[in-house]
């Protein structure tokens, strides 16, 4: 058995109290191969959208939770999970759960690093996020050049979970993954 919260750094642990996932190692490995259709470098385990997975009499019951209510990726993620299990000869049943609601704190440290590498700035803390999105302070770091001299272009970006920024040093536009708490 692997407890997912063990993979999370100490500083984030306080926010993880609701995130207790007990997922069998074998199932974990299969779930890890499923990626977020909108951020393909990120596995759904790193996103923290899988709530539980249990193998009961040959049927794998997987609970997933949406990042945003209208996120069109959820249907695709459900289908991709089924497909990943089918390839291993297992049948998966997907259940969408809303409570407790997903938060960006559930993105794992590895997931955050993957986001940055892919060119998406990882979510800041709740207070810093608000300051950044109201355009009060320059706090979002450019994932390309690392400069903090960035500006908000739009509070809403290419998907429900992102805002749009531009770096004033290297001039690259980039996505910022909004903090959701």
């Amino acid at each position, binding site marked *: 058995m692997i407890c997912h919260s063990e993979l999370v750094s100490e500083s984030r642990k306080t926010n993880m109290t609701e995130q207790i996932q007990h997922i069998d190692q074998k199932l974990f490995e299969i779930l890890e191969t499923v990626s977020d259709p909108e951020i393909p470098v990120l596995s759904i385990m790193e996103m923290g959208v899988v709530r539980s997975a249990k193998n009961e009499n040959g049927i794998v019951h997987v609970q997933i939770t*949406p990042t*945003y*209510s*209208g*996120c*069109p990726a959820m249907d695709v993620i459900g289908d991709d999970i089924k497909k990943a299990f089918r390839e291993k000869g297992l049948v998966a049943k997907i259940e969408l*759960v*809303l*409570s*407790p*609601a997903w938060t960006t704190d559930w993105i794992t440290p590895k997931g955050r690093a993957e986001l940055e590498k892919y060119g998406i700035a990882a979510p800041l803390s709740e207070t810093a996020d608000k300051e950044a*999105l*109201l355009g009060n302070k320059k706090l979002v770091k450019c994932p390309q050049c690392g400069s903090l001299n960035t500006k908000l*272009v*739009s*509070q*809403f*970006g*290419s998907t*429900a979970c992102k805002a*749009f920024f531009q770096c004033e040093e290297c001039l690259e536009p980039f996505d910022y993954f*909004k903090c*959701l*708490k």
Partner: protein
Amino acid sequence: MKNNLIQYILGIADNSLILGQRLGELCGHGPSLETDIALTNISLDLLGQTRSYFQYVAKLQGDNATEDTVAFLRLEGDYKNVLLVEQPNTDFGYSIARQFLFDIFHLSLLNELQNSPDETLAAIAKKSIKEVSYHTRFSTDWIRRLGDGTEESHNRIQSAINDLWIFTDELFHQTEADKIMVSEGVGVDVTKLKSDYYKTVNTILKESTLQIPTIEYFQKGGKNGVHSEHMGYILTELQYIQRTYPNMTW
């Protein structure tokens, strides 16, 4: 009891459905790329919330009900949304004013609904509240920018606020089903949200150098299925595919 609960949920969900549909009309037609994306993102959130409510309604209805039959196969009088959300996207000022006047209400409603003993409603509210906080931030920000902007933007947002003000009182009306669900402890007593609503709205309007309308005659009807002339057009578009090709699926 079950039917009252269904009617109560539709009273909340239909607001999100119809406003989501209205905002969806702006996809590709927003005044700038950023606002276009923002308004359609808000639409997506609202339609996502609607799906959660409708899935619950379909489960309560049983038989062969699905979220799609609830969304697409009702008659105009069966939709319980307030008149405010069906008002058209006359110009960007109207879309923002409508959004602002609804968001402030929506946020306070969800804030109470998250404490409902009905676990499904509480879970949907808890999920939605995070999204609606963001909508509120967006619409409030634009009220300030337009109100305290140029003479043109000030005048246009003022006239939108003036025109839409008559629809605000209905947000705090209760249907018979609402009253029953409040007495059961499941529903939110919206009458109690009214004074805080106007306090918040008035403060933001003042900060935005806008006048608070002094209208005493308000419009109502949507909550009981009596809609404005706009509703038929909205439903014609919303229901087109299901009415033309019954039972069609993606």
